[in-house]
């Protein structure tokens, strides 16, 4: 379809050969032999797997879900091969949100990289900053002041609650519940306003710095936090009581998208998705970093490994996060919030890996320094990408209605998947 400028007066010119003018808009030329039944994919299959997938069996059809489907989380496109309502096979198509962050980072100096990795998992930006910042600190061998570490843990746990609250609402929305998402957005909004008072941003905080954090706790943050803490647990439990005691919700989520321990380990899953299968693996306890060894909290696990377990586990984690915030506020020491570092940093050549336990699993950053002021390479290990691989095993056999719910229960963020 091409557009051309119509002549100012008189009849439009006759259409070129092989085309005709649209009846809606004579300026639009349409090709005569345009075939609406365009094959998917529009090219000949390139691999055996593609050839197998794009051959339809008896009574099967393709359904393009995404990238503009109302409930794909971000811009994931999944080509479903359906037999009636049942999914036979899927072909996920990624890359609609690819920005080349890892390459951009190589051309930015160490401080600038923080704002580059920020929008990767835009729901929980603080963890995207935390992993590279810690990796750089290991390269530089610098010690972070204790107050800065406490502030990091405090704001990180707040961000974890915001992320989980959003997940709970989304998951309900994918199962057809209208209200929970708006109720959980109230929760998230309070936290986001709080973090905005602390960091100056509502979404992409850009708050952690190499050797500390950007700003100290201020009055507005503390007053908002105190206000929220007094009713947080009750508010979340009241909101989610709408779902947890709902027969329809429980019947749909239970036994759906079951991941067993062996499969979860084989897929390298981490975070709540792994803990829902019964493995108490949490980086905050297994490879302690920051001040987590000083804090008291439990690692909730469940053994079912289905969507309901993943959902309930995140609710438990919210409660544990509130416990951690309580202790942080209780033990918050005085002191500086930044280590003394030069403005332009040049770490000695070497490599460092650092991982933090984010709301979705282990965020890892592997930094290689060549002695200049820019990282030679920064590899981001993103849990969303790892978890999204499981849909290939989980979706076939599901009903169409459950596709989105299974996908949502893994909680992938496409910004992190496509990088």
């Amino acid at each position, binding site marked *: 379809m091409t557009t051309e400028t119509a002549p100012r007066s008189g009849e439009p010119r006759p259409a070129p050969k092989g085309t005709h003018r649209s009846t809606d808009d004579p300026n639009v030329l349409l090709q005569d032999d345009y075939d609406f039944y365009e094959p998917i994919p529009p090219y000949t299959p390139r691999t055996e797997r593609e050839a197998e997938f794009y051959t339809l069996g008896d009574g099967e059809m393709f*359904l393009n879900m995404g990238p503009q489907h109302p409930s794909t989380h971000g811009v994931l496109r999944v080509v479903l091969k359906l037999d009636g309502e049942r999914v036979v096979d899927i072909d996920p198509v990624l890359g609609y949100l690819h920005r080349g962050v890892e390459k951009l980072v190589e051309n930015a100096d160490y401080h600038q990289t923080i704002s580059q990795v920020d929008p990767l998992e835009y729901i929980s930006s603080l963890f995207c900053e935390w992993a590279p910042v810690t990796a750089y600190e290991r390269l530089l061998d610098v010690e972070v002041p204790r107050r800065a570490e406490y502030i990091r843990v405090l704001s990180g746990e707040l961000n974890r609650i915001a992320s989980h609250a959003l997940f709970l609402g989304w998951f*309900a929305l994918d199962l*057809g519940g*209208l*209200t929970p998402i708006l*109720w959980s957005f109230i929760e998230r909004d309070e936290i986001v306003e709080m973090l905005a008072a602390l960091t100056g941003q509502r979404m992409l905080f850009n708050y952690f710095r190499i050797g500390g954090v950007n700003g100290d706790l201020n009055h507005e943050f503390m007053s908002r936090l105190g206000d929220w803490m007094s009713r947080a647990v009750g508010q979340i439990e009241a909101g989610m009581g709408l779902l947890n005691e*709902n027969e*329809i919700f429980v019947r749909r989520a239970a036994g759906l998208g079951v991941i067993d321990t062996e499969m979860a380990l084989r897929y390298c899953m981490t975070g709540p998705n792994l803990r829902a299968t019964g493995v108490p693996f949490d980086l905050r306890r297994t490879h302690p970093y920051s001040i987590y060894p000083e804090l008291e909290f439990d690692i909730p696990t469940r053994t079912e490994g289905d969507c309901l377990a993943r959902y309930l586990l995140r609710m438990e984690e919210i409660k544990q996060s509130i416990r951690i915030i309580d202790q942080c506020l209780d033990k918050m020491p005085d002191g500086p919030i930044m280590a003394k570092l030069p403005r332009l940093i040049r770490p000695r050549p070497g490599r460092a890996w650092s991982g933090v336990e984010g709301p979705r699993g282990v965020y890892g950053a592997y930094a290689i320094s060549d002695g200049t002021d820019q990282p030679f390479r920064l590899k981001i290990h993103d849990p969303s990408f790892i978890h999204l691989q499981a849909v290939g095993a989980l979706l076939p056999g599901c*009903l169409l209605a459950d596709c*989105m719910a299974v996908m949502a229960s893994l909680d992938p963020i496409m910004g992190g998947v496509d990088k």
Partner: protein
Amino acid sequence: MTVVARTWDRLTLPGKALFILIPLLGVLTLGLVITIALFGQQILDILIFNLPIVRFVFSVTILMLIFVPMAFVIIYMEMKIIALMNLRIGPDRVGPWGTLLSTVHGLKVLMKEDFTPGKADAVVFTWAPVVVFSTAVLSALVLPFAPGLYGQDMNIGLLYFFAVGGMTVVGLLMGGWSSFNKYSLIGGLRSAAQIVSYEIPLTLSVVGLVILAGTMSLNEIVIQQSRTGWFTDWFMFRQPLGFLIFAIAATAEANRTPFDLTEADSEIVAGFATEYSGMRFGFFFFAEYINVFIISAITVVLFMGGWNAPFPSPHISWIVDPGSLGLWLVILIAIVPVVGTLALAAPFYLFRSKTRWWVALILGFVLFNVIAGGIFSLWAYINFDWVAGLFWFVGKAFALVFLFVWMRGTLPRVRIDQLMGFAWKWLLPAALLNLFVTAAAVLVIDAMKAAPK
């Protein structure tokens, strides 16, 4: 340029309109008068001879005129109530408390481009919303709104209602099939499967009621629920299981949450309506909300006493003969509105110094109208059966509409296999059980009555 053309150019737009309209109206009136004078008797004869058809056309027209504003009201209700349940504010921009928003939506869909996808079956695509909308309106033809206020009183009213109401699925299938979109196709097929499955328990659940009532005329059924005048007469209490099955199946019939699989936006975008836009989408949209009202209304008619008040009303008769009032009639008509308006305006003007006199007058006028309207409504309620009946009928129906909206705000959606399993494994056996128990009880009671003492 002639004088006529110059004069025409000088006229303003309203002037031009009046210039055309007044002669046109004159000609039309003259034509009507002449026609009546010449063929009046014959026309009257034809109308009287074809009275059922005239009644049908008239009542369908009235229903169509009533149902579009009613859909507006229900859409506004849903937007506002769900907003309040979601702890949002909801519509509050257009009109007082946003009440005109759904009207504006209606105007918007009228003005939008009416798009047909390429390769769509244009004829079927166009007729699908018409089928859905007209079946919704036609099925309301037998609803008794109040004593004497109904489209048709058929002796097979209930059968007619289910038959015409079931036609909706044809429209949805047409829309889903002709859209040239797989989401639409899945939506249409889902609706076919769902509505056909739920039609069976829906119909079976009222057979017990029909046995008890002994008739299928909806008017008769309503009258049978007013023996003592108390709400205990309602079939809801004599057929509790039937009522429960009917309520669940009716929710599925109206495609409402938790059974709104046909337009599940998180699964199949908008189901059969995915490719629709403009007024064709508007017809689907209105039909959906009209269906909500009709399903509520039929539930009220069958199980909740129809137009009957839940308690016997005291027999007050307060008919005033205007002729007997004499001079008071003049005072009532000429003086009371003026004095009332002034009296109600005075406090605004006197006690709030910022209020201008004309604002106070407007406020007083509005207040007076509200009070006078209230008194008039009370008078009408006491004196006219149909006003009282309409009040209770619409009140009960809207209470059920509120229930539907409440469910939409609260419940998630069921899965298609759960939906089907529920219909065939639970609702159908329960409906059959209800039917057998009712039939057996009626037989036993009749036998006991007939037995010689």
